[in-house]
Structures are given as structure tokens and as C-alpha cells.
């Protein structure tokens, strides 16, 4: 079952690369996304209770990976649908040609393949290889537009992430060495086996290994101070890819960190890793808050917000205990709903206004009624206001902090979250309200002159608008109540992490 899950995006990538017409590529893309979503239900539901293995134990899925996998499948599904409209629009306007379109879709599915591989891997080196693979493939996507800014962003991304991952691999080697020292001969590279012997692995060696792994995988996840590539890469990539990068990739890297933290907790006790994660989390939140206030580019703002939220996730994991981990995992899901939603809506803003500067965008609600409103709702959700989902997970994490008596974390968290709230709402509010900027109202004028054309245009982009509305509804629902199956997934995942 895992094999099919991996094969689908791979085959799609190949097919998309060789397809001939635009319609053909888009159909392949949509069909594959749907098939992937349906097929993935089987392994996800089975592995909730018992782990499933594949390929000589090199790949496996347990409750934790099935949870992250479902996040991946959901975001790639909506991103695939959205790209049809978005890239189609760019294709129609002549900004990209058919060869680039083919290239985009092939790389998109290849990217999904590498992320799936990283979630489903048991062998820690295959995990590393998959994450390095995501770096390589997504850097091509970041540099997709081939202009100055994109090329610079892609270069920074690939260099910083590859260098950090080299340190991460060194940490992996140390873990392997520790496992070999336990058995006195051959060590093991499979995570399940490592977890079984983790309590007898040498603590000093594990400490050293964990530092390297946290730095290495942490750079990929977006921890400050090694986050420099993230604003550039996430803002220069095409919009559906930004959604995937912010929504899934940093969570995949964080999954890698969680796996090793589980090993570390067995060997060292929970305080060491917890403290490190808290430090990184608070640092990320702080730095992101500072930069959010100074932003003038809304895509970069969203990227910094991703850094902040991965900081929150790290804080949740660092606080530990049932509710801390539960809140952190829930936050992963919530962020993966809100952030792609925001990227999608601001993607429309970009297509209409042809700029990414906050100053130049005004009156988004009047120009884009549906997308603009959803954008505003999404921004409130992102900033953490009730009744949306992010508020719920942040509240859970804060409650866990109070329960553990972690007052410093609690106060810093509230401080940063408040400042960010103000900053984000101010920036996006100025974009949403006000008179539409002159250039746009002119083109809006021209479009109303061809009223029929307008309606047709709304009809064309119907699919992505539906997606946006659906995501907004989910966002609201999850803020009010957590459905049973989600609760069960979360409980099982927490059990995996705390090792019951």
C-alpha cells in the first residue's frame, strides 16, 4: 500500500513531463491528485492502530506518520487543484510557455513524491535522502521564474539547506554509531529498531548527535537563526509551491526532528530535548515577530509567519506532556490549513495587482469579493483570534505551559503572539480595505465593459474559489470542535511520541 502511494506521484511526474497539450497535463494532474487522496485513505486508516511496513522495513507508517501524511495529502490535493487555475491563468497571460508548464507539473508531483517518501521512511538515511531530495526539487521550483530574485532565492535555499543537511547526516551517523555500540557489532538504521534499543544508547553520544540533527533538520524546518533562506524561497516560489513549502515541507522536516527527539527522550530523558526545542521555538517566534512588523511584501510576511508558527510547534513539543504534544500536532494541521489558504488568496491578489508590495495593494475586498473576504478571515485565523482553529491549538499549548509551570515561555509566547497579531492585521487590513488602487480600478472598468467576459472569468476560476471557501469552512469548524477521527489520530500520534 505504501508502494502505491509512492508510485502515484512518481508516475504522474513522468506523465506530466511527456504530455503534449495543456488540457492533457491538467487532467493528469487532477486525476492523480484525486486518486492519491482516495488511495491514501487505506494506509492512513490501517496504520492508525498498527504500523505497516514495506520494502524490508525500510519504509513504514505508524500513527504519527499517517497523521502527517494526511496533512500532506490534503494540502497537495488542494494545491494541485489551485495550480490548474493559477498556472493556467499565467499561461493564458503569456507569462509562461507550455514547456515551463509541463516542467512545473512534473516537478510538482516529484516534489510530492519526495515528501511522501520522507514521511513514510523508516530507515533514517532514506529519511535524510528524501529531505535532501525535497531540497533539490523544490529549489528548482523556487527558481521557476528564472528572474534575478528567484535565482538568488533558489541559490540561498539550496546552499543553506544542503550545508545544514550535511551536518544533519553527520548527526545520523553518530546515532548509527551509538546503536552499533549498544549491540557491539552491526548497528541499525531503522527507526523502529532504534527506538527499541534507545534507552541503552550512550547519553553523551546521543547528546552530540541531537545537536547536529537539531541544527541540520532545524534549518530545513525553519528554526531561527538558520531561517534565512525561508523568506526568500517561500516568497519567490510560484504560489501553489509556496503553499506546499509552508504547509507541508517544514512539517516534514519537523517530523524528522520529532523522530530523533523520541530517540533522544528514551536515552536522555525529556528535559534535554525539551529545553533545546523551547530555545529554538522562542527564538524563531521572536525573530519572526520582529521581521513581520517591518515587512512590505505580503508573501515574505506570510513566510515569516510560517517561521513563527513552526516556532510555536517547537514550543509545544518542547513543553511536552500530553497536552503540549497534542497542541503541537494539532497546530501542525491548523497551520497547514490556514497558511495555504492565505497563499492561495494572496495569489489571486498578485495575479490581479501584479505586485507583491503591501503598499501598492488596496481594496482587495472590492476587487476580489470572495478571495478578499476569505483572505481577511484567514488573516484573523493566522493571527490567532477565536473562533478559528489556530486559536484553539495555541490555547492548548499555552495551557500545557501553565500546567508545567513554564511561566517564562508563557509570557514570551503571549508577548510575541500579541505583537504579531497587531502587525499582521494591520498589514493585511490595509490591503483588504480602502479604495482600490487606480491601476486596478481602470482594468476593473475595462472588464465591466466586457461584462460577459467577467462572468466567464469567474466561472473559469470556480474550482479554486470553491477550494478556498471549503478550506475557510474547515478552518472555522476546527476552531469550534475537533471531530472524533481527528481526535483519535492525535491521541495515537501522541502515544507514539511519548512511547506508550
Amino acid at each position, binding site marked *: 500500500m505504501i508502494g502505491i502511494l509512492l508510485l502515484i506521484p512518481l508516475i504522474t511526474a513522468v506523465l506530466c513531463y511527456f504530455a503534449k497539450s495543456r488540457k492533457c497535463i491538467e487532467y493528469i494532474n487532477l486525476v492523480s491528485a484525486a486518486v492519491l487522496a482516495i488511495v491514501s485513505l487505506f494506509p492512513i486508516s490501517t496504520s492508525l492502530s498498527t504500523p505497516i511496513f514495506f520494502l524490508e522495513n525500510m519504509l513504514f507508517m505508524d500513527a504519527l506518520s499517517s497523521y502527517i501524511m494526511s496533512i500532506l495529502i490534503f494540502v497537495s490535493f488542494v494545491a494541485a487543484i489551485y495550480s490548474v487555475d493559477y498556472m493556467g491563468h499565467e499561461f493564458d497571460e503569456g507569462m509562461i510557455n507550455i514547456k515551463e508548464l509541463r516542467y512545473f507539473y512534473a516537478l510538482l508531483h516529484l516534489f510530492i513524491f519526495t515528501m511522501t517518501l520522507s514521511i513514510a521512511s523508516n530507515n533514517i*538515511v532514506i529519511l535524510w535522502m528524501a529531505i535532501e531530495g525535497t531540497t533539490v526539487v523544490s529549489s528548482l521550483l523556487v527558481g521557476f521564474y528564472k528572474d534575478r*530574485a528567484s535565482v538568488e532565492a533558489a541559490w540561498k535555499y539550496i546552499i543553506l539547506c544542503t550545508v545544514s543537511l550535511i551536518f544533519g547526516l553527520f548527526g545520523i551517523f553518530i546515532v*548509527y*554509531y551509538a546503536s552499533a555500540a549498544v549491540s557491539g557489532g552491526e548497528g541499525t*538504521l531503522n527507526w523502529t529498531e532504534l527506538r527499541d534499543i534507545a534507552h541503552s544508547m550512550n547519553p553523551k553520544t546521543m547528546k552530540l548527535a541531537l545537536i547536529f540533527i537539531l541544527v541540520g533538520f532545524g534549518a530545513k524546518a525553519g528554526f531561527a537563526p538558520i531561517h534565512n533562506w525561508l523568506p526568500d524561497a517561500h516568497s519567490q516560489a510560484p504560489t501553489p509551491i509556496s503553499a506546499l513549502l509552508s504547509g507541508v515541507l517544514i512539517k516534514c522536516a519537523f517530523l524528522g526532528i520529532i523522530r530523533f527527539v523520541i530517540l533522544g527522550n528514551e536515552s536522555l530523558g525529556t528535559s534535554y530535548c525539551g529545553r533545546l526545542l523551547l530555545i529554538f521555538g522562542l527564538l524563531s517566534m521572536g525573530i519572526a515577530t520582529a521581521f513581520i512588523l517591518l515587512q512590505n511584501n505580503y508573501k515574505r510576511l506570510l513566510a515569516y509567519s510560517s517561521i513563527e508558527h513552526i516556532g510555536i510547534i517547537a514550543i509545544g513539543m518542547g513543553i511536552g506532556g500530553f497536552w503540549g504534544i497534542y497542541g503541537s500536532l494539532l497546530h501542525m494541521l491548523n497551520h497547514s490549513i490556514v497558511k495555504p489558504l492565505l497563499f492561495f488568496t494572496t495569489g489571486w491578489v498578485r495575479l490581479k495587482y501584479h505586485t507583491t508590495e503591501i503598499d501598492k495593494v488596496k481594496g482587495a475586498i472590492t476587487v476580489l469579493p470572495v478571495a478578499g473576504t476569505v483572505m481577511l478571515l484567514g488573516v484573523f485565523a493566522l493571527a490567532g483570534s477565536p473562533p478559528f482553529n489556530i486559536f484553539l491549538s495555541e490555547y492548548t499549548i499555552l495551557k500545557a505551559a501553565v500546567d508545567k509551570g513554564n511561566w517564562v515561555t508563557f509570557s514570551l509566547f503571549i508577548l510575541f503572539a500579541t505583537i504579531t497579531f497587531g502587525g499582521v492585521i494591520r498589514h493585511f487590513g490595509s490591503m483588504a480595505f480602502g479604495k482600490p488602487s487606480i491601476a486596478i480600478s481602470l482594468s476593473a472598468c475595462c472588464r465591466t465593459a466586457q461584462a460577459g467576459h467577467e462572468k466567464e472569468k469567474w466561472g473559469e476560476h470556480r474550482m479554486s474559489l470553491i477550494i478556498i471557501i471549503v478550506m475557510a469552512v474547515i478552518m472555522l469548524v476546527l476552531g469550534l470542535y475537533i471531530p472524533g477521527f481527528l481526535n483519535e489520530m492525535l491521541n495515537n500520534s501522541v502515544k507514539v511520541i511519548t512511547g506508550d
Partner: protein
Amino acid sequence: MKNWFDLLYVIDFISVGILLTAVVMNALKRLESCVRAYIFNSWFLSILIFFVAVKTGNPHLYVAASLTLATKGILMPIFLSKMVRQIKATHFVEPYLSNSLSLTIAGILVAIVYTSLREGILVTGFSVHILKISIAVILIGLFIMITRRKAITQVLGLLFMENGLFLAGFSLTFGMPIIVELGILFDMLMGVIILGVFIVQIRRNFSSVDLDSLTTLHD
């Protein structure tokens, strides 16, 4: 045969050779010489794995040695030379620090690695030396990456780091499953090819490969 090895400390010599090529890289002024230093480093690495294979009699180390030679010793240099020719670079490395200063700092880095790893990792046998050398090579590679201005020399620094990492993995694990080594090599190969693609694009967009010109994105 084995006595001859031990008498002439062949493995020690080769590992010192690996370190030396990394340190010497700091002192080189021309791009072609830097690429040549990398070639020597990779060949030394493959020969080292080969000799350890002979000494321990482990058959899949032979495969590992030939794989390393094929990717790092042959394919990568071909790609690098092609890239150097393609971007028609001015042939001088432009470092931020003078050559003697960076050479000195490289020496200091080696000293730091040696002294700080006296206890710590509890590796036994002769692989302790190789581990220390590999960490030194990783640090020197990182140092080269930070202090050079041209994009190609950053790639070279990355390649040195990767060589050091490979050596470190080898000394810590003595041969992981072959598929793993294959995968790592493949990944890095892909990474470097992509980097090459981007260097060409940097050149096209900025009409120079000087990384100081990459300042469009900032806050």
C-alpha cells in the same frame, strides 16, 4: 601484504593527504587549481576506502570504493571543469581573506578539531584519526564556503564538506548498506548538478558569478 601496509603506514599517509589537499585549497589562487585539489581529495578518499577494504577483507567496501571513484573522482570533476569553462569565469578565486590568513585559520581549525576531540566520541581503532580528519575537512569546507566570493568556489567548498562527511560516515560505520551509500552519492550528485544549473542562471541574470551581487532580497 598486511605487514607492508602497517610498516609504511599507508592508511595514515592517505588520510593526511586528504587533510592536506583540503588545507592547501585555501592557498590556491586559480579556479582550475582548486578543482584539481578537489580531484586529488576524491581520489585519495576512494583509495583510502580501497585500502581499508584490502585490510579488513570486506567485499562490499570494494564496491563502495569504486562507486566513490566513479562519482566523485570522475563524474564530478568532468562536470566541474565543464562548468568552469561554460561560465567563462575570470580564473581567479576572489576571497574575502588573503590566502595566508585563510591558510592560517585553516591550520587553527585543524588544531581545534584535534584538541577538542580528545575525549568525546568513543570510536576505537585507527578510525579515530580518520574521524578527526574528516571533521577537520568538513570545517575547512565550511570555512571555504563562507570566505569566498565566487559561486563556483562555494560549490567546491560544499563538495569538500561532502567528502569530509563521507569519510566521517565511513569511519563511524565501516560501511553501511550499499543502497544507503548509493543514495547519498546520488543525492549529492543531483544537488551539485542543480547548483551548476543555477550558476549558469546567476551568470545570465547578474552577468557575473560574484555572489556579492546577490543582494536583491533583503529586509
